[in-house]
Structures are given as C-alpha cells and as structure tokens.
C-alpha cells in the first residue's frame, strides 16, 4: 500500500511577529579570583548576571562554532587551567532550563562536586579575575511579521541573528517550557507539530547562529514545499 500524500499545511490562525532583544552590559560589584569565590558568586549574584554569563554570552559569540559555551567554563579554562571542570561547565545546555534558578543550581552543583574531589583547587588564584556582569535587556519590534508559512520563512531568512536568539533560545525563560517561539507558533497556529519538534532538536552548540537560522529555514522549507 502506498503512503497517502502529505496534506498541505493549513494557513496559520494568527500572525507571527518577529521581535528582537538588545542588551547593555552592566558591570557587577562582585568578582572572583578562585573557584571558592566563583561558586559563592554564582550562588548569590542576581538572575540577570547568570543570564549574561550563559544565555547572553552565547549570543555575543554566536559566530563561534566550537570551543565557546559560557563565561564560567571559559574562565575556568583560561584563567584557572582546570580543563575537567571547564568541560563539565561547557556541557551545560542553556536550553535545558526554563528558569534561571535551575541553571544557577546546576552550575553551583558542578563546581561544588568538583571542589569536593579536588579541594586544593578551591583557593588557587586564577591568572585574571572573573568579573560578574549583568545584562539589561530591551525588547524591540522588527519590520517583519508573517501571516503565512511562506512569509514566516522569509522572516526567518531576513531577521538579525539577535532576533533568532530571542525567539529560539531566550524564549524558554519567557515561555517557561521546553520549547521556543518558532516551534510553538508552528505547532499551535499551523498544526506543524513535527516541524516544530525538528526545529527544537537543532544543536546550538555545534552551530553558529547563522547555521541555526539556515537549519530552521531548511526544515520549514521542506515542510511547505
């Protein structure tokens, strides 16, 4: 029996409005010279500092495909030369979290576990301090909105990578669920659940944000053509 042809996707019920977020870096009052100080800082710094050093720094370095994950991992390697802990911290995927608190706890646990096994590393000074910073965020509209899937694809292709980051990565903190604005809209407004799931599976740590954009566009293009 031959498979029945795929039904054409339905027209979306509501348009998708592409927004973007821009950030200003606020210099914090805390700094850390050792792992002990780092873990205390991670425990006590404001949420927008955790956001800056994880979500936001990923956006700032969106053009690097390999070797950059978050500021805590970078500093642990470059200033403290602790490659094992650096690898562990770098493995934390910000998209596994829908709230900053969970991300903060994971980082604290990782550093704590490492120090439990390597107590001598706790007070060893790094070659340079870690400066805690925070991100002040302003959400802005863009010139793009889409009432059709074709228009949605055009928007994906033309908005800035900051807009891709806003909808695809930061969205979890807004939605408070393991999804993103693109997948949510495709599922809820166009009935394209599988397409949304395929987009959600894109690996942001082995791609640049331009690469992520291309993959999203390819998945949508295949679904509507």
């Amino acid at each position, binding site marked *: 029996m031959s498979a029945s042809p795929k039904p054409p996707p339905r027209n979306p019920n509501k348009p998708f409005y592409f927004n973007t977020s821009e950030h200003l870096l606020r210099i914090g009052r805390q700094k850390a010279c050792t792992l002990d100080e780092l873990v205390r800082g991670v425990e006590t710094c404001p949420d927008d500092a955790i956001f800056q050093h994880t979500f936001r720094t990923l956006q700032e370095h969106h053009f690097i495909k390999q070797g950059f994950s978050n500021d805590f991992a970078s500093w642990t390697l470059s200033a403290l030369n602790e490659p094992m802990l650096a690898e562990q911290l770098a493995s934390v995927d910000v998209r596994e979290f829908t709230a900053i608190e969970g991300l903060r706890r994971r980082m604290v646990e990782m550093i704590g576990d490492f120090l439990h096994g390597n107590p001598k590393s706790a007070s060893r000074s790094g070659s340079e301090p870690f400066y805690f*910073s925070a991100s002040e965020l302003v959400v802005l509209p863009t010139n793009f909105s889409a009432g059709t899937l074709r228009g949605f694809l055009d928007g994906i292709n033309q908005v800035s990578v900051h807009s891709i980051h806003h909808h695809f990565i930061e969205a979890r903190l807004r939605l408070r669920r393991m999804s993103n604005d693109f997948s949510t809209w495709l599922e809820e407004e166009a009935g394209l659940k599988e397409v949304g799931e395929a987009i959600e599976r894109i690996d942001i740590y082995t791609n640049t944000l331009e690469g992520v954009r291309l993959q999203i566009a390819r998945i949508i293009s295949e679904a509507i053509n």
Partner: protein
Amino acid sequence: MSSEQQPHVPGSSLASAPPSKEEPNAAAPVRRDRRASDRTLPASLLTPPVPPPPPHLDDYRSIVGQSQIDTLRFLARELKGKAIKMVNSTAVGGGVAEMLNRMVPLLSEMEVPTHWDVITGGNDFFEVTKAFHNALHGSAYELTRSAEDIFLMYNEQNRHRMRFEEEMVVIHDPQPLPLIRSRQDARGHWVWRCHIDLSNPDARVWAFLKPFIEQYDAAIFSAQSFARQLAAPQYLFYPCIDPLSEKNKELSEEQIQKVCEEFGIDRSRPIVTQVSRFDRLKDPVGVVHAYKLARKYVDCQLVLAGGGATDDPEGAAVLQDVKEAAGDDPDIIILNLPPWCAFEINALQRASTVIVQKSLKEGFGLTVTEALWKGKPTIASAVGGIPNQIIHNLTGVLVHSVEGCAFQIRYLLTHPELARTIGINGREQAKENFLITANVKRWLLLFRILDQAKARRRTA
C-alpha cells in the same frame, strides 16, 4: 653600519630599490640584496588630506546588515526629539574626539539631537588635567591645593558659559567632571564616560574626584577591570572603530599594492606587522626580538609602522632603540609616519599576513580592533583591555612574552588554515562588538534604560 644594511625608515633612510620577486619559502629565511638610500616620505604624505564628510547611517547597511540599521531606528524612535549633550576637553586629536566626530552626526540623523561642547582652559588647566590623567593611571603625583583650585576654577568658568538643557548629558573623562554641579534638578540624566583605566589610581587624586563621580546617574568604562566600586550603576562600552573611516574602509588590491611598493614591502613573502606609536609601552623592541626568534624557522618581513618619533623626544629615543635592535636586517621595515597616514596604515594592515600588538601596558587596543576588523590573525599581549578584545585561540591569540609571541608568529605562518579561521572569527567579533554602530546602539540603549529607571522611581 653601511647604508645598504640599514632598515628602512622613511624620513631618515628608506630602501628605494624595488622589492624582489622571490617566492615565499616557509622553511628558510630569504635574504635580499636591497640597497638602501636616504629618502623622504612620498610627497602625498607630507600634508594632511582633506577629511571626507561623515557617513550616513544607511552607509553602514552593507557592513552590519539592514536588520541592525532597523534596530537602531527602532531604538531611536522612542527617544525622538530628546537631546544629548556630549562634553569633552578637545575638539581635535585623540580617540575621544575622533569617535565623537562620527557618533554625533549619526545620533542626530536619527532625530536624537546630539550637541558636542568642548571645555576650554589655559595651559595651567591642561597641565593639571594631564597630571591627573597620569595619576589615575597609577603614576605617583603630589596633589596640591593649587592644582585643585586650578581644576575647579576652569570648570566653574566653563559651567557658567555652558547650558545643560538636554535630556542626557555625557561628560567624557575626568577633565570636565565638576560640571555635574550644574545639575540642578532631576531633569536630565548625567553620565560619566571614563575612557581611562581606573584600576590602580593615585589615592589622593581619586579621593578628590570621587565625590563628583558619585553624583552621576551612571558611569561607563571600557573594560570591567577598569571600573571602581561606585554607588551609581556602571556599564561597559567598548571603544569603537568606524569601518568607513580612512583607517578601516575597504581598499582595492591595487591601493594596497601601491602603498607596499612605496614602502618597499615585498607582498610575495609573509608580512608581520605592528602598528603603534614608538613608545616603550608598545614594546617595539620586543617585537623585533620576537621576529628574530621566529625568523630562525620561517621566512617573513617585519613592518613596524607608527608615529610619535618626530615631536616627542622619548619617541625618538625609542625609534633609535628599535633601529639598533633591527641592526642590518633588510627585512625589518620601520615606518615613522605622520598622524594623517590613516590610509597607509589601513593598506599596511590589509597587506599583513599576521598582525602583532605586543604592548606591555594597554587600555583598549584600537589597533587590535582594526586588525580584527580586517580579518587578520592577531597576536596580542594579555594586558589591559586586550583580553576583552580577543578570545584566546578563537578570535586571536594572547601572549605573555617575547618567546610566546615568536612561537605564535611561527605557528600562524605555518598553519594558514587555522590563521584564516581565527581571522574570520576575529572579524565577526569586531563586527558584533567594536564598530561604531554597536556603540550608537549602546548609547540609545543606555538612554532608554535610564529613562525607564527614572519612570520607575517616579511611580514608586
């Protein structure tokens, strides 16, 4: 030293013979028989060129993309008609004036009217402020009552001369700090933009200036490590370059070739370049030593291009040291250029295979940003603000010694694919963070954030 053995120094001794056409050879250094003779700078470089008109916002579209231009316009829309005043201490010369020359028209073009005022003062004022500048950088200084009086008197004169009716007043650097006394009500935001490194200031000068700084609504620094503990929020603004300026605009292959020919640089062989004033803190002698260590393994030429040796006795002494360190190596090309040679510097950077910035102390190295923007693999010392500009092994290479610098020169010259990737990443890093459009965005963001904070305070 015979004339044919001297390194090339325009204005004193520059090789006039055409460059050789030998093929590059990474394994063995190539010696060229180049006859040097006294030669002055090309006639075109003897007088400053007429500056071109400042670019418009849309001129940056092809560089940063339409979406980034749209973002700036959306940000400016809510601020439409609200004015900014920028105040600094010099209208020409120096990085701040250069940046304001470009920034002010762009903000005004987006209907955020931006005015630029320059404070005035006698020689005694600028002697005091120069001493303050050095003291804030950590030099020893005996602060006297007389110096305080001179500083305050000229600021009072300027304060009475100037009006502060704008919605955001930005004071650049310490010289005009006491203008904050004109802040009579909560009408405008007052922001202090500090372009210098305050990590290790002279205690007395800091104690004298801090009460003024504490009255500002926000302070801006060029690196986290330059900041101090202050009551007001502090923000990070990277110093920026203009990709459309003479120093950074795209050049044709012919333009680059012509400049190299004028300076006797052989483009068929690898070129390692440092662009910097002849200043001990830029360690040009260290660069010569690093080059000589690298040359045991790879063929390359060294270009040291900069100025400061004509009008500064210390610069002349450093230049002499560099010439002595260079010895009779005809592949070391030393260029003492006048300050208006931005186009030539641009061409030299673009002709380079690797760019070095081996500073011993540095604020935020604009020459590093220029190199990154040109997609050149960049080796720089891990000092001052440079670690904010380069992520080691990803967007450039950080070094801590002459030996480390030499090794990285060898490594990048013999691993062109890695060098290319680092160069591409470095350019993206510059595009994302260090272009003038990024700083226009930061000013607009700050203005909106301060507006929002004030609105919240009123509601509370």
